[in-house]
């Protein structure tokens, strides 16, 4: 008798417990379902940004500014490289995928196609400015004037000699052209995984080689006989190296030159000096554009995306004299800047045609 009454009490307790535990889950189930249909439900507190290591400093600066001057959380910025960023960005529209990806080149059509395939069709493109690639040497040398063809001769694996492609025989600059100084060729440049190297290959090697009959097609292989030394990007040691070894030249981003102006100077390329005005006007031939891409599906679900992009595109950031130019960004010309800003403000949709035109 006693036992069975205890048993009854116990059963009652456990039923009550079940009700208590079960109730919440049941209520939550509906909440979760509605979250899927309701597009304004917040999925995350912080904006997540991935992508190019070149845009990373600018992007994180703008992110910090957003965190410090508004009530939004500071966005998380990860430097994954342009390609890695596009991969993460285009994985889908889920909450764990990034909201924005930075790129030191325009999005590739293939990357856009992946995005579309995974259901991300509403993307807005933003262009923030340029980064010039400079060929720098020690300040104690006289000025150096190079052409892109001479650069190709100094850096390519195979070069045309007498109408034939041969392994690069040049060891001194003046072997390439009498006008160049009699100095050994030693070039510190970015490694193969770097976007700066991609840009250098595209803007120097490929653009020159496709016009040279000996190559017949675009050629982009950099010599590996030790004259070209791959070094970490934005590596302070490169500057020390250039300072010590006056023969050496370095290839890096303009922003890095800006920081180390006391020690190194840039060579002119095709007669154009590497100054912001020439880079943003496009007359300096070795420069690349910097971009970021916004996943519009996440606007409203992650707070602050609109505010972040607006802040990033403002003159205070990317205009002449803006804080990002202090750390090396080269601003867009005024007209284009206004146009780009409008594109972002209107969340204009990126299409495959826009990328193909490029």
């Amino acid at each position, binding site marked *: 008798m006693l036992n069975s009454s205890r048993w009854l009490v116990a059963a009652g307790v456990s039923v009550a417990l079940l009700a208590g535990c079960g109730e919440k889950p049941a209520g939550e189930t509906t909440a979760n379902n509605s979250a899927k249909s309701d597009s304004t439900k917040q999925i995350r*507190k*912080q904006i*997540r940004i991935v992508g190019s290591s070149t845009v*990373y*400093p600018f992007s*994180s*600066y703008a*992110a*910090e*500014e957003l*965190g*410090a*001057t508004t009530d939004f*959380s*500071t966005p*998380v*910025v*990860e*430097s*994954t490289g342009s390609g890695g960023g596009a991969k*993460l960005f285009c994985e889908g529209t889920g909450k*764990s995928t990034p909201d924005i990806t930075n790129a030191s080149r325009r999005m590739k059509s293939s990357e856009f196609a992946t995005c579309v395939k995974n259901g991300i069709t509403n993307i807005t493109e933003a262009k923030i400015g340029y980064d010039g690639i400079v060929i720098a040497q020690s*300040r104690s040398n006289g000025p150096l004037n190079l052409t892109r063809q001479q650069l190709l001769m100094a850096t390519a694996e195979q070069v045309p000699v007498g109408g034939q492609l041969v392994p690069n025989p040049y060891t001194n600059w003046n072997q390439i052209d009498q006008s160049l100084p009699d100095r050994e060729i030693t070039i510190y440049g970015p490694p193969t995984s770097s976007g700066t190297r991609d840009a250098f290959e595209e803007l120097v090697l490929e653009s020159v080689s496709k016009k040279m009959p000996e190559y017949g097609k675009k050629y982009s292989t950099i010599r590996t006989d030790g004259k070209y030394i791959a070094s970490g990007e*934005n590596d*302070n040691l490169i500057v020390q190296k250039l300072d010590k070894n006056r023969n050496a030249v370095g290839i890096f981003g303009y922003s*890095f030159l800006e*920081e180390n102006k*006391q*020690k190194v100077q840039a060579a002119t390329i095709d007669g154009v000096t590497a100054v912001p005005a020439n880079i943003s006007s496009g007359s300096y031939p070795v420069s690349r554009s910097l971009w970021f891409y916004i996943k519009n599906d996440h606007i409203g679900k992650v707070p602050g995306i609109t505010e972040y992009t607006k802040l990033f595109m403002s003159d205070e950031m990317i205009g002449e004299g803006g*804080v990002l130019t202090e*750390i090396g960004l080269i601003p867009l010309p005024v007209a284009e800047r206004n146009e780009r800003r409008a594109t972002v403000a209107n969340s204009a949709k990126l299409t495959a045609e826009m990328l193909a035109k490029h």
Partner: protein
Amino acid sequence: MDMTAEMTPERRAELDARVQRKLKKRYRAAKRFHFYCVGSLVLAISFLAFFFTDMISKGHSAFQQAHVQVDVDYAEKNLRFTKRAIAEDMHDIVSRGWLRDLRRVKKENPELVGTKAVAWALADDEVDQYLKGNKDLTGDDNTVEQKALAARIDALKADGKIKMKFNVGFFTNGDSKIPEMSGLWSAMVGSILVMVLTLLFSFPIGVMTAIYLEEFAPDNRLTQLIEININNLAAVPSILFGLLGLAIFINFFGVPRSSALAGGLTLGLMTLPVIIISTRAALRAVPDTIRQAAYGMGCTEWRTVRDHVLPLSMPGILTGTIIGIAQAMGETAPLLIIGMMAYIPEAPEGFLQAATVLPAQIFTWAGMPERAYVERTAAGILVLMSVLILMNASAVLLRKKFERRW
């Protein structure tokens, strides 16, 4: 026998001398060898001394930060474009970050709005580095503007308007792109969260595995496989755990990238073998008589372990666990792969939010071009090393205090 009998005193003396010479040589060799051994130990320890001296000399200055006295005009209109709030010749001396934060005055100290006051502002990193002697502004390489700036700084210092203060921000701020504003706060919080998860994950599983292997497992193929496997895991390069974390936890299980959870699970797997191996050693140290006594009293296998073996081996287990966690706390390579090497200035509020940890912060700062980050990197290292040494010392003390020799 005959030979000794025939030996003349001369010959004997000569032999003696030879033996003496040989002995001398052998003793010299023994001495030399002794010397090499001492030398090696001294060398190893002097590396350690050199390392710490180097880090302290590089990092100590980061615990002080230059502050400059400025007249601030908190007029309403100035709080939007905060550069106007201070005199123009102070613009390159006061930190840009400090100016930016002036905007918050309206919200945080509304009574200041519309008044004028003297404030100690954070100085720009160039000023700070110049005062600490880390950056030369007056040498031949410097521009005219830099030399002028140096002169103004010297003048302010002579007036007592620039002062070094304890760098509170280094412990209360998160990461920043403005060197003088950057601090360790978010990384410290991140480290704690990640370590809590690592512990929660690896401690129970590690101890259970060890108990199984030491107390329950039959000696069969499976047991041997598990044993070999654990030994191997302890030697697998840590970067491979990063690849595992990326493929399994992030891509397959959908754990958010860069989150404390992803880091904790990855590091937990890495710490597992350390905990298993030390727990097994601790269990093995408990003499069998204890177990037999328990069985004799009618305890089941599990009760024996739970009530007798485990409590007796706890000090050893905890020591091993602390050492394992300390190791995980300094680990960086796998976190590089799972996205914790990002710009994450805010301390995470939950296990699923993006987090960074102390060694990751050190790595990020080490790659920054500004001079001011070098001292911050070294100071970060000093903080991390103090925590690690503290943990290891407590492990040693624990062992000393509670270890029982049977």
